């Protein structure tokens, strides 16, 4: 008994007029004394805990009402008078909570569930892809009949409020994602989970890349190889992923901007798709080493591949077969190679100049063969006829973007296109609508950056084709071009953001002539 810790003295507030806990000699803990509902104080608030209790000392406090603080004014009030108060969200979900349960579970009221499914069906065709979460695996919603077991158990249910019915639509939207996309998501999730850096989505029959499919791959981390001891040297391998993405054998028509956010992507295969264009945003994939674009519908390549070859890591570029433009059929404004300004007679095939060992650098590097004519566009984005562009070109040549361009770039920078559905902009004037749709397309393809002045832009003002021979890169840098080898230039389309952003013919010549005359 002596070892027992003495209990603190009970508060003696009724004996003394002054509350003892304000005394200096008090050894009481600083925390408030316990409060019980049976304490005879007028209200159970802590503020008036020490208020002197008059008159009814010793009487138990009688409390009538609900546990969340409703006091009964009129003792004759019935329990059902509290009923409307129960819709206040207590934060506790109980099985008997009707308002939520009936929106999920089918009720016996056939018209309600029919209406609900109609709503779901109606909402389906215009389901925006953005609504889907990356990790949420679509769950199948089997439409249960009105007499489903759950519905029977629940008994009669009061009429639901209309907004309760519309609410769960959001949750069911992703149900209707196509099977191909579900499969692709499963593969990506699997790769993420296992830390596999080779993502094989080939032969997936996808017509487009669903949103939020590729984004998570940016954060893929390899898992360390767990092996039994003895631990050898090769266990210590880099955990940095060598990200490879295979989208071969799908039916992709265009590439989404999400693909170009995978800046650590090393290998990209888009073989056997239906691409007509590779967006210039490919430039953002700076660590790309190996690209396969064969068996598509490409007539030209983006100039940004040349940038990736020179400034990036690109070593292997497979582009044939594709319905690429041919240099002998194309209009050429300027020849850069071989060192002439007069058109090369096309009877004689283009050949690399003869060289003797050592192998010149030229035999490895891409060679600029020719440049096509420059097409100019007005501020509306319409091409300007050749004759007219020559007369007006001097007057308006300036690097300043047009006001349309400035507004479009700002729109693309903001989240306007994410927030505004197509129906909201449909009643704008036709010309504006065209610009807005164009801007949205550019945004969806990952944006554009002027190849001359590096400004972000939407409407190109100039456009031309450059012909480059990249045969060493098509071979994966296995060897230099042989002496006198036939050249097979590829068309690269280049865009400029203003009429000043045009190729500088002279400087290009100056850099290339000395190289060829050295040999």
């Amino acid at each position: 008994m002596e070892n027992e810790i003495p209990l603190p003295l009970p508060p003696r507030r009724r004996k003394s007029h002054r509350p003892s806990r304000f005394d200096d000699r008090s050894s009481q803990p600083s925390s408030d004394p316990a409060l019980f509902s049976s304490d005879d104080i007028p209200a159970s608030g802590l503020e008036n805990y020490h208020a002197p209790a008059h008159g009814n000392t010793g009487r138990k406090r009688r409390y009538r009402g609900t546990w969340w603080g409703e006091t009964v004014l009129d003792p004759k009030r019935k329990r059902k008078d509290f009923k409307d108060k129960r819709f206040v969200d207590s934060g506790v979900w109980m099985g008997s909570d009707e308002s939520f349960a009936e929106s999920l579970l089918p009720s016996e009221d056939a018209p309600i569930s029919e209406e609900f499914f109609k709503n779901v069906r109606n909402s389906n065709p215009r389901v925006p892809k953005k609504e889907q979460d990356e990790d949420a695996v679509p769950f199948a919603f089997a439409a249960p009949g009105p007499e489903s077991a759950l519905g029977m158990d629940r008994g009669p249910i009061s009429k639901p409020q209309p907004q309760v019915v519309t609410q769960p639509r959001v949750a069911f939207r992703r149900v209707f994602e196509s099977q191909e996309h579900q499969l692709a998501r499963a593969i990506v999730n699997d790769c993420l989970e296992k830390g596999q850096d080779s993502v094989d989505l080939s032969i997936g029959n996808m017509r487009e890349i669903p949103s939020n499919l590729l984004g998570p791959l940016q954060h893929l981390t390899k898992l360390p190889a767990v092996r039994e001891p003895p631990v050898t040297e090769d266990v210590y391998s880099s955990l940095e992923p060598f990200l490879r993405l295979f989208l071969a054998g799908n039916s992709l028509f265009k590439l989404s901007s999400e693909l170009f956010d995978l800046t650590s992507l090393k290998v990209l295969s888009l073989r056997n798709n239906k691409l007509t264009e590779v967006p210039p945003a490919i430039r953002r994939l700076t660590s790309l080493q190996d690209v396969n674009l064969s068996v598509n519908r490409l007539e030209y390549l983006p100039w940004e591949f040349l940038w990736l070859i020179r400034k990036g890591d690109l070593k292997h570029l497979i582009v044939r077969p594709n319905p690429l433009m041919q240099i002998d059929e194309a209009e050429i404004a300027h020849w850069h190679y071989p060192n002439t300004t007069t058109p090369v007679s096309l009877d004689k095939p283009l050949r690399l100049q003869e060289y003797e060992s050592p192998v010149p650098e030229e035999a490895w590097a891409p060679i600029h063969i020719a440049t096509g004519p420059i097409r100019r566009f007005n501020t509306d984005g319409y091409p300007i006829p050749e004759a007219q562009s020559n007369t007006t070109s001097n007057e308006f040549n300036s690097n300043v973007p047009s006001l349309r361009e400035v507004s479009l770039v700002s729109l693309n920078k903001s989240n306007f296109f994410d927030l505004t559905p197509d129906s909201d902009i449909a009643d704008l004037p036709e010309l504006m609508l065209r610009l807005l749709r164009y801007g949205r397309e550019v945004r969806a393809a990952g944006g554009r950056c002027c190849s001359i002045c590096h400004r972000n832009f939407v409407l190109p003002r100039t456009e031309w084709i450059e012909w480059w021979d990249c045969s060493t890169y098509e071979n994966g840098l296995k060897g230099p071009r042989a002496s006198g080898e036939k050249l097979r230039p590829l068309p690269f389309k280049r865009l400029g953001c203003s009429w000043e952003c045009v190729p500088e013919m002279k400087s290009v010549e100056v850099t290339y002539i000395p190289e060829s005359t050295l040999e």
Partner: protein
Amino acid sequence: MSEATQQEYVTLVSGDGFEFVVPRSTACVSGTIRRMLDPSSNFSEAITGRCVLETLSGVVLEKVCEYFCYNQKNKEQANVPDMEIPPELCLELLMAADYLDT
């Protein structure tokens, strides 16, 4: 009329009555205003040097004038800085750009 062409400044008036006085060369960045102020056109704008742009509000016209100055200032430069536009004005400015042909 010869007097009007010599005026160095022109006045742009917005639909809600705001007036902006800008150099003539600056205002002529816009194709529409240039045509309005063309002395050979004999438009009243060309004579008085005052263009009333009913469809533009004062806020938008202010930004348009800012753009005119931005365009004029950077005309000769190779590296043009970006012009910031608040997102809520983008659509109206796009509409104005359509109207002003700039």
